């Protein structure tokens, strides 16, 4: 779980040089300087607030990075174990076995800041519900996270920028309902049927197509329902390979979209900070000009007297 500590690194103190008049209310002898100073102060506090938020995003990003590394390390370890214990004839679980007609079974959904989905709201609802069903094998932890994700609008990131999500495609609830628990975390529903069946690959590949709304007669342009990538490597795949798949699914579904969201949110804050800094610099310049003008005026008054 990402660390949600709002401010692990205290924000840098406001730049003292930016405010040439630290006690604006002490004498109030120079009314023209007062609004400029207030402007500068306001910009400084805006920048501080932005940087505080930025640092909390950075902290979350770093924590997620650690989680991703741990997951990937386990994935590589399991892949190495699978390769080590590979059956005769299997040189290596790698690109030689990739399916040349593979279809993505997990796809990205990009939501806008308000929580609305770019591709259509129906899909969001479907995905949320489906993932709850699907997550039985994956443990309650994931379901909990999904639940949190569902409450859009609480997270400032979701209000401000885009939100990336990765979900099973097509939503398994439409096809084979609720069988996902047999296979462990994140295995797609069509896959589960395949693994449960007697290994007739062709028949099982067509099965989801029959269940789909478009039927089996869809052309080449229509994407075929994806099959479980594990099946590229045979029917009886070793346990380490399945475990590697579990880690990869967790990384792809949970960590990577969050990292992408954070990266986008951080970029947005960077932009705002730069803008606020420019504004502050302008305010400072204006203030300096006014001070110089005032000093000149005072000098003239002194000479006249």
């Amino acid at each position, binding site marked *: 779980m990402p660390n949600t500590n709002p401010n692990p690194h205290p924000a840098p103190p406001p730049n003292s040089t930016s405010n040439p008049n630290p006690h604006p209310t002490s004498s109030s002898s120079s009314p023209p300087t007062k609004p400029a100073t207030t402007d500068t102060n306001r910009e400084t506090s805006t920048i501080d607030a932005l940087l505080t938020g930025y640092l909390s995003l950075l902290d979350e990003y770093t924590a997620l990075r650690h989680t991703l590394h741990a997951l*990937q390390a386990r994935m590589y370890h399991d892949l190495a174990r699978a390769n080590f214990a590979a059956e005769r004839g299997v040189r290596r679980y790698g690109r030689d076995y990739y399916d040349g007609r593979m279809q993505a079974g997990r796809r990205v959904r990009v939501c806008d800041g308000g929580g609305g989905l770019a591709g259509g709201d129906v899909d969001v609802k479907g995905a949320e519900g489906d993932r709850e069903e699907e997550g039985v094998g994956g443990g309650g932890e994931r379901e909990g996270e999904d639940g949190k994700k569902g409450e859009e609008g609480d997270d400032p990131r979701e209000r401000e920028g885009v939100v990336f999500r990765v979900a099973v495609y097509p939503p398994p609830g439409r096809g084979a309902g609720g069988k996902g628990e047999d296979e462990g975390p994140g295995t797609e529903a069509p896959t589960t049927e395949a693994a449960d069946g007697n290994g007739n690959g062709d028949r099982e590949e067509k099965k989801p197509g029959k269940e789909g709304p478009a039927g089996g007669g869809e052309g080449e342009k229509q994407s075929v329902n*994806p099959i479980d990538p594990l099946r590229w490597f045979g029917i009886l795949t070793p346990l380490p390979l399945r475990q590697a798949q579990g880690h990869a699914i967790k990384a792809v579904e949970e960590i990577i979209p969050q990292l992408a969201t954070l990266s986008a949110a951080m970029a947005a804050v960077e932009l705002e900070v730069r803008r606020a800094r420019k504004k502050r610099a302008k305010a400072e310049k204006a203030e300096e000009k006014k001070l110089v003008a005032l000093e000149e005026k005072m000098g003239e008054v002194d000479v006249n007297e």
Partner: protein
Amino acid sequence: MASQADFRDRQFLAVIGDEDSVTGLLLAGIGHVTAPPDNQKNFLVVDAKTDNASIEAAFERFTTERKDIGIVLINQHIADRIRNRVDTYTQAFPTILEIPSKDHPYDPEKDSVLRRVRRLFGE
């Protein structure tokens, strides 16, 4: 802020990585090959024989030409080979994420997001 049309169709993850990284991520079900006339893959397996031009071409294809990619994952040691291209990439979509590989641990100093952080704080 990017318009909705910019990210409406971005539904795939793309990977540029070594064989183990790509295999692992494809196991998660992100691999996609488009319909026959194009047969475009959303991944590139990089090995010792792959030259930088191919990596750069794949990066270009995933980031600029294809409008259906939402996130590009690239092994950090491979991103190092086209570092200039990765660091000068400023588009909002797709998002680039550097990931570690089996043989090359993740170095935060090289991460493009953390570089941005350092730049913001004036280092």
